[in-house]
């Protein structure tokens, strides 16, 4: 009895020893800065030597400024990006799931946007969006859709969609491969049973594949939502939030305030707001996934 207790105790101690390095590291580099952000958001920290406590002033400033617009823009941007990613990704997965020759190769070919350095993929889009000489404007002119060149990144409305499309392009491989894995996890017997009963391919897709994919779709949308909300590189490289702030999302705005203008306090207040939104998403995610998991057991 005593020996068994000792053994269990030593196992627990050993487990904590194993965890310690990773835990301490993440505490120092993620948890401490998180707390620090929160504290900073109530100060007027900047490049000057002294910082003073300013209470809610930073938050009041945020809501006085055009920040509400930024928040709405961020949500619209994120919503469309996630929705388009899900649609294209699920479409791609359905196509790649078909048992046709060459599908292993096609699967590999979906990966590059995800695997190559993000910035480099974005440079390529930057050229494609070029108004005078870029591919998209050029092709549209050739096909007779527009008379003159369109400088996609120079006008607010087109820049907004251009950054979304690039974000979709980077996110699609992950959604596709995830949905593909989910499709392949559907038991084959279901299809066989339906097939024996004379169900056609489209009917099987609509009545078996789609309903069984719903949990994975929800999970993936939530994960994608969190990642997209945090999206920085794409907008920063393509437009830096311009023109006229029309592609300025919360992350871009925070970066500009904090790193560009060195207003740490005001930047921190914005970061705290982002954290609050992210925590809400995250809570929803855990809620939904645990509900899905318990639903599976029943």
């Amino acid at each position, binding site marked *: 009895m005593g020996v068994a207790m000792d053994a269990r105790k030593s196992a627990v101690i050993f487990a904590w020893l194993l965890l310690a390095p990773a835990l301490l590291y993440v505490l120092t580099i993620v948890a401490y800065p998180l707390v620090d952000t929160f504290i900073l958001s109530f100060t007027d920290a900047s490049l000057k030597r002294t910082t003073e406590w300013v209470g809610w002033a930073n938050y009041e400033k945020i809501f006085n400024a055009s920040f509400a617009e930024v928040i709405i823009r961020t949500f619209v941007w994120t919503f469309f990006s996630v929705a388009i990613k899900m649609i294209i990704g699920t479409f791609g997965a359905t196509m790649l799931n078909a048992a046709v020759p060459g599908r292993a190769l096609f699967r590999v070919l979906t990966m590059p946007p995800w695997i190559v350095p993000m910035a480099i993929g974005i440079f390529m889009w930057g050229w494609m969006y070029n108004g005078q000489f870029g591919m998209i*404007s050029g092709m549209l002119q050739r096909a007779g859709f527009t008379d003159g060149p369109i400088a996609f990144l120079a006008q607010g409305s087109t820049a907004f969609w251009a950054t979304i499309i690039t974000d979709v392009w980077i996110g699609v491989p992950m959604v596709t491969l995830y949905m593909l894995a989910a499709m392949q996890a559907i038991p084959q017997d279901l299809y066989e049973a339906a097939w024996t009963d004379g169900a056609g391919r489209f009917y099987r897709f609509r009545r078996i594949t789609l309903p069984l994919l719903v949990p994975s779709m929800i999970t993936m949308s939530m994960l994608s939502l969190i990642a997209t909300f945090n999206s920085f590189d794409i907008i920063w490289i393509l437009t830096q939030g311009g023109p006229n702030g029309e592609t300025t999302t919360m992350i871009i705005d925070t970066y500009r305030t904090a790193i560009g203008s060195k207003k740490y306090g005001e930047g921190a207040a914005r970061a705290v707001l982002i954290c609050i939104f992210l925590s809400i998403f995250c809570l929803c995610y855990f809620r939904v996934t645990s509900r899905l998991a318990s639903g599976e057991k029943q």
Partner: protein
Amino acid sequence: MREPPQLINRYRWYEIIGIYCGIGVFLTFVLAPFVEGFLVSLKPLSQLFSSPYRFIPENGSFRAYVTMWESVPGFGRYIFNSFFISTIVTAVVLCMVVPAAYAFARFEFKGRGTLLGAFLAVNMFSGAVLLIPLFRLMRSLGVLNTYFAMIVPGVAFLIPSAIWLLRTYMMRIPKELDEAAYVDGASHFYTLRRVILPIAMPGITVVAITTFIGSYAQQFIFALTFNAKSEYMPLPVGLFAYFGRQEVVWNELMAASFVGIAPAMIVIFFLQRYLVSGLTAGAVKQ
């Protein structure tokens, strides 16, 4: 994977055409920037900056691949930096993640679920949210504008997924192996080193690859913010500095990009089987 029975997957000719068309449209979207980027790298500048737009290069050449080494002086250094940073990041991540994943996979202790959840919650923050305190932290440690400034935060944000992935893998190793070693009088540490590590090697390899790619491909913001010295810049930031200039020499930029992504492409080509399983493992059956 079990092969499905033949009859159910027999497609009619129009279905096959439909599927290939669908795949074609999908892959066009995914690959178009690469095709266009490659063609741009072959075009002479005069042709790039001419209207109307032409897709196929006329008298294209690989000249940009030669001249770029002079126009982007730090190019070799950037590639080295990218590799160097990613290698160190991967090594540090593995050192911390292998024991942690083992602890999560095998030991019962109070707060295990909460702790795992807390690790995963790190994933929801991009570095961008924590930049201000990280910047101050780096400054007070005096490591701004060094390799450290890019490695230290990079590691933290790659730990959670790596733990998750490796834990999933280790849970599939039969428990009887540990118990047998334990009955034979092996210590916990000996069991980890001599029993678990060798068996978990394929899983560790997958984690190493995904971590390396995560570091090589995705960590732009730390290098952009914490380092201003051109000699330490990794490839994406180095090229971004070049990209930001008024007169962008597009064909050389694209040539440089292609040389820069070649390593990643080679990795995909040889390791794609591990990649797919690694990147999607645990994701579906959580």
